[in-house]
């Protein structure tokens, strides 16, 4: 028996017309790590949930570990470690209490408990935070704890649904290491991801599109290095032709003579005795894309929020188009376009209503408003979705709409906080082509991201660690500085270096 999961011709249809899985066949080999990549709504989550028995397919047959995942669910559960996109950590329980709870649920023998906990806590570096409430952990730590809970009881099959969304490159590596070193030799791991560099490092790779498997094999077959691999995957998924963003034609900024639309002077934020951000100074030129990079919890989010007026700095000042955002918030904010990590438009309103609301809030009225909305609908191809509630849109379209709402009033400054978290590679490239066009038109962009390929799009990068800027420069300069081949390596090395200097 070499297959851990056997899937024969399964089909799953939602709401009568959306085919999430379309006559799909797949064998997953025992003892290997299999990566699943695909666009949003390609059916990755539905596939994983069918394998674990949470979804019953309309047609076809699944055998998971020689068991029927629906009929023999109880038996399967004791061999299964499952980590859904939002792992069910109890935010009000401490790290150790969460572990205890999952150990009980997994019926981990008491004799093994202590050893297992020690090993997991040590490996995840969560030992010092044992008593901290899970809700207070940084994003990367939460994912590590979630994975640790899923690993309890040495499952035969480990199913991970995008465990690395919104996690910094260093923590991502650690997650991978955890899976490789903490699971048993014969454990099968299924890992869905939207990071292609991650998929490259798995034993097997499955590419999905529109509910079908379009590739299944060793990642090497698709490309020698991650660039090649990425190209092939994108080619498989229908390819991406970089078309000129319509923004280049239709977007015109008001003339202004300000040299540095975004300015931070000695920005500091203190929580009690703890410096979340220390002495941060930077200027962003007109039309520059400025990237804020750093591990989870390094303070880049705090800096970001201080710049757009969501957090008041303890000292120092943030200026947008020369206007201090604390002293004159309404004026400064009217220059800002803002797009957040989490989809933050009104989910129960439809696309047209969202556009209309944000246009009016930013002072567009009458014919001008209609015109701008029409343009945005055209540029981002939103026409078919105008009457749909935005909560039903796919992630890629949500991001498009969020960007449309953010730039409708032609802001000279654009703030993007992990705008592409969880978005598939093609949608991301599309998104960045719009951002690049905006910057060519003179919009200054400040962006945070965990995708190192996106960091390459930035004109300048500031690397954050423990509340301080440890390096600034163009992507090339940063790589040069530590003689790294790619951004990911540069990122890790710069942070290691700064840790050594302490």
């Amino acid at each position, binding site marked *: 028996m070499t297959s851990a999961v056997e899937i024969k011709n399964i089909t799953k249809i939602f709401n009568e017309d959306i085919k999430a899985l379309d006559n799909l066949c797949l064998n997953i080999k025992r003892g290997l790590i299999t990566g699943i990549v695909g666009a949003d709504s390609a059916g990755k989550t539905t596939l994983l949930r069918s394998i674990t028995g949470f979804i019953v397919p309309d047609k076809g047959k699944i055998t998971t570990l020689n068991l029927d995942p629906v009929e023999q669910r109880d038996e399967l559960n004791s061999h299964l470690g499952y980590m859904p996109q939002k792992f069910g950590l109890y935010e009000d329980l401490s790290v150790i209490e969460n572990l205890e709870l999952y150990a009980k649920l997994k019926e981990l023998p008491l004799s093994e408990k202590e050893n297992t906990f020690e090993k997991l806590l040590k490996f995840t570096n969560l030992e010092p935070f044992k008593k901290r409430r899970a809700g207070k952990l940084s994003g990367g730590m939460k994912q590590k704890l979630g994975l640790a809970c899923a690993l309890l009881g040495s499952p035969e099959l480990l199913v991970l649904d995008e465990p690395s969304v919104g996690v910094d490159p260093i923590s991502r590596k650690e997650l991978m290491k955890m899976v490789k070193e903490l699971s048993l030799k014969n454990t099968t791991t299924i890992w869905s991801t939207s990071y292609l560099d991650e998929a490259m490092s798995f034993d097997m790779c499955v590419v999905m599109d529109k509910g079908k498997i379009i590739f299944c094999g060793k990642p090497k077959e698709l490309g020698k290095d991650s660039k090649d691999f990425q190209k092939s995957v994108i080619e498989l998924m229908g390819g991406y032709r970089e078309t000129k963003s319509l923004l280049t034609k239709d977007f015109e900024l008001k003339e202004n003579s300000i040299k540095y639309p975004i300015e931070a002077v000695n920005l500091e934020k203190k929580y009690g005795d703890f410096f979340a951000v220390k002495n941060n100074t930077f200027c962003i030129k007109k039309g520059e894309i400025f990237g804020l990079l750093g591990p989870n919890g390094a303070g880049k989010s705090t800096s970001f929020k201080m710049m757009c007026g969501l957090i008041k700095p303890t000292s120092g000042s943030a200026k947008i188009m020369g206007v201090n955002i604390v002293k004159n918030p309404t004026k400064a904010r009217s220059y*800002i376009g803002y797009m*957040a990590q989490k989809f933050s*438009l009104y989910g129960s*309103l439809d696309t047209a209503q969202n556009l209309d609301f944000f246009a*009016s809030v930013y002072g567009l009225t009458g014919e001008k408003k209609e015109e701008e909305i029409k343009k945005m609908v055209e540029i981002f191809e939103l026409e078919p979705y105008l009457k749909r509630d935005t909560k039903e849109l796919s992630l890629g379209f949500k991001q498009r709409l969020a960007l449309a709402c953010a730039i409708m009033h032609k802001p000279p400054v654009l703030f993007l906080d992990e705008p592409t978290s969880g978005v598939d590679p093609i949608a991301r490239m599309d998104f960045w082509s719009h951002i690049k066009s905006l910057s060519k038109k003179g919009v200054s962009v400040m962006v945070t991201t965990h995708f190192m390929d996106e960091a390459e799009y930035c004109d300048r990068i500031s690397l954050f660690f423990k509340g301080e800027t440890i390096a600034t420069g163009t992507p090339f300069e940063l790589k040069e500085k530590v003689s790294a081949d790619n951004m990911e390596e540069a990122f890790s090395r710069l942070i290691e270096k700064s840790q050594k200097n302490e």
Partner: protein
Amino acid sequence: MFKRILSLVKKEFLIIWRDPKSRMLIVLPPLMQLFIFAHAMTMEIKNIDLSVLDRSNTYESRELISRFENSKWFRKIIYVQNEKQLRKNIETQKTSMALEINSDFAKNLKRGKSTDLQVITDGRQTNTAAIAGSYASEIIAQYSDEFKKDKGSNIQTDTRSWYNPNLEYLFYTLASLLVLLAMVVTLLLTSLSIAREREMGTYEQLIVSPCTPFEILAGKTIAPMAVAIGLSGFMLVVTVTFFKMPFRGSLFLYFISTIAALLSITGVGLFISALSKTQQQAILGAFTFQTPASLLSGFISPIDDMPVFFQYLTYLDPLRFYMVIGKGIIFKDMGVYDVLANIIPLILIAICTLTGALWLFRKQLD
């Protein structure tokens, strides 16, 4: 600024109205409560069954029993033959009241002597027992008065209740419910509004926009207010047309005082919402306010009967004033000055709670 407020109001309306679930949640529960409370919450007792042991068995005793039979409160008269049966009927709750008439009942009455009757009520249901007992004494007293009248001199007392001559408790309940339900809806809509945006992540998007805290709160005040006022009007129409409750006062005054009362409650709701991180917390917060507010409003027990400290506490409760105005206008056609005397405290409370909410909302942005 006004255009921004306008678009914020429009958005709030859309959010309340677009989701079919939230739409149902706003309209259905108040209506359901109106119907359930109106029928279940009554101080009146009807359908009392009565056991009768008539040892006299004369014209006079039968006349008395027929008075019971023909009153609107009593349903069934069960005749028994001895005390044992009487006792059993009460014990087994077959009837909740028993009447025993002695054999010398008619004889004594005719001689102008007083005579004794025994009325037994089932004390296991204290309230019912007391009220049913009072009905019985009323019937007996009336009969005795009439009997004496036939013999000559007497003083007769007639009680008339002002503004509610038939003592329809239903109307009393309905008028109070209008007030209570208006509060529940307003509190629900407002306490959820900021907390919902926090939970959904739209809060930050709104804060980064040029909208000021004042404008945001204005939007969150106007839209729920309009919905709650509309709903109050609708409930008033239902009570007047469906339950035939009389409305004697000025509709205009009622409308104005409803606005004042709901404004003060909106302030409370927004304050709770600004404090809450999640919708769950907001709902709990709303409940924490709601229960004492209704208890102190004078709906369940009269304010004059409360301990002195609590009597002072009721002055902080917007419902107290709204309850007085509501019942006053509906039943008594309360005059402008009396209404004003209650509207002014409402406006003061509204100013305090709304500025409190704004202050808290602003403070959290720092």
